[in-house]
Structures are given as C-alpha cells and as structure tokens.
C-alpha cells in the first residue's frame, strides 16, 4: 500500500513540486496551505510523514509541529521542515518543537526523495 505524505506549504509552486516528485516516486500526497489547513485535513487519515514549510499565514510550521506532537497519532511521525540556510534560529525552534529533520531550500527532486525514503520505510 502506498505511504501517505502530508505536504504543508503556502506556496503553490512548492506544493506542486513536492507532490509531483513524490507521486512520481509512488507516494500518496495530501496537500495543505498552512498549519491550520493541515490539522483540518488530518481527520483520522494515516499519515506516514509530514513535510512542512515554516513561514505560513494563520498557523506557521513551528506551531503545526507542536500541535502534531501533542496529537497521540503523530507522536512518532517523522516531521521534516523546509528551511532556508539563513533560518538558523527557526531550525533550532523547529527542533525544540519536535521536528525530525529538515530539507534546505532549494533542493533537487532526488534530494527530496532521499530524505523521504530515509524516514518512511
């Protein structure tokens, strides 16, 4: 059965890039435009991995990670954040909130797949 990855990003192009790449690699994709949207779209679905941007309107990535970690269904789910090299403090914040790792933007499709494969077995 295909594993499901949740991609949370307010940038349409980024969402499309990630979902296109991962669909191609055989993953199911759920897209959300911000943290709140992501929480709303969970409704009991089995999600194997979350990829989230950090700066988003309404609910940012850090808050999303915090809320997910408080949700018993997501305590052990790998959550990877999308960051830029310059967001060192954000990275630390994400780490404290319970993120499992990060992908530095910009990244190639191959890099993305490698990270996902690492966390989803």
């Amino acid at each position, binding site marked *: 059965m295909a594993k499901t990855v949740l991609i949370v990003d307010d940038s349409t192009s980024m969402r499309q890039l990630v979902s296109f790449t991962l669909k191609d690699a055989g993953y199911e994709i759920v897209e959300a435009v911000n943290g709140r949207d992501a929480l709303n779209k969970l409704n009991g679905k089995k999600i194997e*991995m979350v990829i989230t941007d950090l700066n988003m309107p309404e609910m940012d990535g850090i808050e999303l990670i915090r809320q997910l*970690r408080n949700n018993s269904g997501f*305590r*052990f*789910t*790998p*959550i990877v954040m999308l960051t830029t090299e310059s967001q060192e403090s954000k990275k630390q914040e994400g*780490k*404290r909130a*319970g*993120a*499992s*790792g*990060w992908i530095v933007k910009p990244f190639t499709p191959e890099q993305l797949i490698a990270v996902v494969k*690492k*966390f989803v077995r």
Partner: protein
Amino acid sequence: MDIEKLLNVFIDEAIERIAEIEDGLLEIEKSPQDRELINAIFRAAHTIKGSSGTFGLTDISRFTHCMEEILDLMRHDKLAPEKEIINALLESTDILKEMIEALASGKSFDFSRCEDLINTMENLKSRRELKQFKIIFIPSPDLFKRGIEPAIIIEDLKNVGEIVDIQAYSDEVPTLSEFNPEELYLRWDILLKTDRDEADIKEVFEFVEEGSKIKIFPVSDAEKDVPFLGQMLIKEGVVDPEDVDAALKTQKRLGEILVEEGKVTSEDIERVIAKQRNKKMESFKKSISSTIRVDLKKLDHLINIVGEMVIIHSMFQQTIHNNGNGMSERLDVIFNQLQRIGKDIQESVMSLRMLPVGEVFHRFTRLVRELSETRNKSIELIITGEETELDKGVLEKITDPLVHLIRNAIDHGIEPPEERVSKGKPAKGRIHLSAFQLGDSVYIEVEDDGRGLDKERILKKALSAGLINSAAGLTDEQIFNLIFQPGFSTAEKVTDISGRGVGMDVVKKNIESLNGKVFIRTKPDAGTTISIKLPLTLAIIDGLTVSIGDEVFVIPISSVIESLRPDRSNVKTLNEKGEVINVRDEYIPLLRLHEILDIPAQKMEPWEAIVVVTSYEGKKYCLLVDDLIGQQQIVIKNLGNAMPKVRDIAGGTILGDGKVALVLDVPGIVEMATKAMMN
C-alpha cells in the same frame, strides 16, 4: 573603470598572493603544525581562484582550484604537508607565475603544460588520510517522539565513512514491567573510518543532539586496533565507566607534569605559553596588513615634483644670497622654515618608494633549498634585517646580483658535508643573508661559512686568463677583486648554475650602476662575505659641484675623499704611472678631467687648480678640476634616450641658478682613464 585597469589590479594582487603562497609553503615545511599559516596559504590560493574566475580567466581559475583543494585537505588535517605535496605545490606556484606573466604581457599560455601537474595533484589528493573516529552515541530516550529512528542516524553515518565497528549496549533496558515502548533505552559505540572531519560527523547528529549525549573523538593510529585500557577494564567488569571517566579527568597537562618533575619551572611554562600566544597574534596581524596600493607612475610623478621643489629652493636661496643686502632678516627665517618643511616632505615622499628587503630575501629561501638539494649539500639560510628598507628600484636591481652571490656561495663556498666534517665544521653549511642601514647607506651582505677564497687559485687563474701580467705588488684586496673581472671563473667544474665566468662581473656592474660598492671579506676555511653598499635612494644625492672651463659638473660626495690644491713640488711624473700627486707621502695618480671629457679648461696646472681625491676599488685617484663651487643636494635626472650611453656621465641635474650640470660617474671615469693610459 575599464577592464584593462581592473586586470592590472588583478595581476598585481595575484603576484602578491603567489609570493605569499610560496613563502608560506616554505615556512610550513619548518612548522607543519602552524594552522594559521596553512589557512593563510589557502586564503591566498582561494583569492586568486576567485578573482581569476571573475575575470573569466578559466585556466588560472581551474589550476588554482586544484591547488586550493589540496590546501583545503591540508588545513583540515586530511593531508599531511609531506615533501612531495609541498614540491607539487611549489611547482604549481611556478606555473601560476608563468600564467600571470603571460597574462601581463598579453601572451597566451598553453594550458596543456599544466595537465601533468594537475594529475600529480589529483593523485596526491587521494592520499588523504583516513582517520578513525570513535563515536559514543547515547540517544535521548524520547527520540522516537520526534519521529526519528536511531537506525536513520546509523544509515547517515555510512554516507560519511565506513563503519568499522558498532556496538549496541542494552544494559539500560529495564525489566518488562518497567519497560516503556515509547522510550529508547539503547546506546551505541561506533568506530568510523573516514576522510572527513569531526564537524561532518557531528552534522549527522545535528537533529538528535538535544537530550542525547554524543561524543566524537579521533582515534590515533596506535590506538586504532587496540581498545582503550579503560574500555577493556569496563568490558571485563573490573571498573565502572564513571570511574574511568573520573580518572581520565585527573590527567594533567604536559606543562603541569614537567613542572612537577622539576624539569621546568611554572614561570618557564608561562613564559613559553605567552610566547606561543604572541606568535599567534603576530601571524594574525600579518594577515591584516596595513598597506595601500599606489600606481608606481603616480609615485614617480610625485617624486619628480618634489625634486623640482628642491631645485626651486636652491634658486630661492641663491636669489636671497645675491640680493641679500636689502632684504629683511625675516625673509631669511621664513625661507629656512620653508626649506625645513620641504626637506621633510622630500624625505617622506622618498620613503614611499622604500620597501622592506624581506620580501626579496625570502625568495632566496626557496633557491637555497632547491640548490642545496641538487648539490647534495645541507645548507641553512639565515635571514636578518629583513625590515631594512630600500628604494623599490634598487631592490629590483639588486635581486639578480644576490641570486648570483647566493648561488656562488652554495656552489663554490660551502664544502660538501664530508669535507666540512673532516675540517671539524658542522656538516650543515650556513649562509647568512643580512641587511642593515649605516648612515646614508644600506649594506646587504651574503656571508657563508665555507672554504673561503683561494688566493693562489685566483692568481693562477687570472694569470692564465691574461687578466694580469704578474702577481707582484698586488694586495690581497686587489687579488680578491680579480673575481669581479669579466671572464674570470675558478670553478673546476662548470655546473648549470655557476662557473660560466659570467656573474661576478655582472654583479659588480649592476651594483655600480646603482651607485653602490662591493667589498669582499674572506678567510680560508672560515668563509667569505660579500658586502654590498648601496645608497638609500637613487634619485637625490649629495654632490660636490666643480667647474671645468665654462661647464659645471657634479661629483657624488660618496666617492669624494678630499679636495686640495697641491704644492708644485708635489706634482711628479713617474715612468710607469704617469702623473702623480704626493698627498701626505702617498702617490696618487692624476686624472685630468678636461682631457678625459675632451673639453677646454681654464687652468692646466694642478698647483693653480684644484684636485678632488676620490676612491674606487680601494685605490685613490686625483681628479683635476678648475675650481670648487660648492656642495649641494642634487636631483639626478636621467639623460634619456637621446644621449648615447656614456660611461663617464651618470646623469644630469638642474642647479640652483637654473643651469644644467652633468653628474660624473667616478668608476666610469677611472676605467676610461686606465684604458687610455694602457693604450
């Protein structure tokens, strides 16, 4: 700003950087542990690579990239500064120099010449050291709650290097009743073999480091296969890990141990540590140099203007002097002030052209290293006085002569090690290159502790080469000076670097063209010192103005001993030497300047005129002139290409009254006169 100008800036900068790389590489051989030094070399190569890339000079950029990669491995301790590597890098700097030179002269450079060296460097790169690191990984118990599996980390480590050994410890796993499946109880010891460094390994653990204990430390060669004593003790259940940790913490530093053993005092240690700190500071300061690059043309223009100012001062002074009676004293005071300030300006402007000799001296480190290697001699070059400053022009012209002198010292002066030992000297020869300022002159000396000049051999050689007719009456100094004659060479074997009989005469000519002098001091089996005396600056000299007929000439004060009007009874004519003048019982040859210069004079007899006693090569000569005018600072101007090169004139100058005067070249005059006498 046009690209041409920018390119020139690049070339200048590249030349400086290349020198830095070269010096640094030679230095690193002596102190391979100097991290700041290797960083400086890396930065220099990096700068060249970066800026050549910017200018689209892909060849240079590609080539320096190879160098940079090796240097990068070196500065991360992945490549030891072995001789082969240093040699390859030094060769690369040579090629790089050629590339830059080709660029500067607008020629093309055949990049295929670099291929061999690039291949060599690639091969050397693969020699990077594989190191082993021991990693102790005690993960945070709540690692699972962050969506991370420890296996991911172990997988990642495989990307960094080869996992030689991995040991999982399950001793923290509780009994089933207390077991919490959400918590992680395992810990790992990992032995990783890699060419990367600690930081790269640490990066793998970046996301798990919170709440985890991660220790990464390099395992030295000796310990690679042998587990730590502490580890073995723990494994065999003799001690607890905590006890080993505590024991390790009580280990003392080297300094403390030496103090306790009474080998050194704690003051010694502190003193040396302070020294170490100073060294670090110095090398840091070196990297932040406080210089500004100025176009040499601009500087020369400024110097010319200052020269004009000096002339105007003389004119002013003369005008005041001539019309002095009516003028107020106050004008005189103001003039004196003006003159003082003028002199200050002149001196500081001249100092702008001055460069420390160290830059040139340090190039010889490489020369000595390479030559002594090919000659199978062990020679140490000692450099002192590198901060002594010389005019840029003088410095440039002195480089080649110094190369000759150092080559001579290596080839002829310093004996082979066996010979040295049999003479009771240390096997390692020594060349001392020094510079110092004394009065208005700068001395540069090349001193070796070799066999010294062989008087008999020089005489024999000079006789057979027809340089002299007989050895009779020659002083030691004159004999030694024979080596400066064109066509002189005593070397039994002609080597590729010296012994072709060109060299010493060229050395002497070059130095004399700078208004300098060469002296030899030598002692059998103790060594030879060639001492070069140079004027501080070329452009402005103190001169004695003299008149011959209607003309005014300037004789550089540096070659004047005294001037006098001889008594008629002291002027004699000897058979062999021609006209001589008895100066305090010393017979000095008389040279009639008007005859040599072929101009009319007013006074033909020495007792009516004035003779200026000068010295050249340890001999004295009386120059006959009509009258002395005075002594003043003069600015030597090049006569330009319009005048054919004449040996007896060093240049021209404008005097205070606006008249043009020629500056006499005493060595040239003496040579012309001796030649005329021989004919």
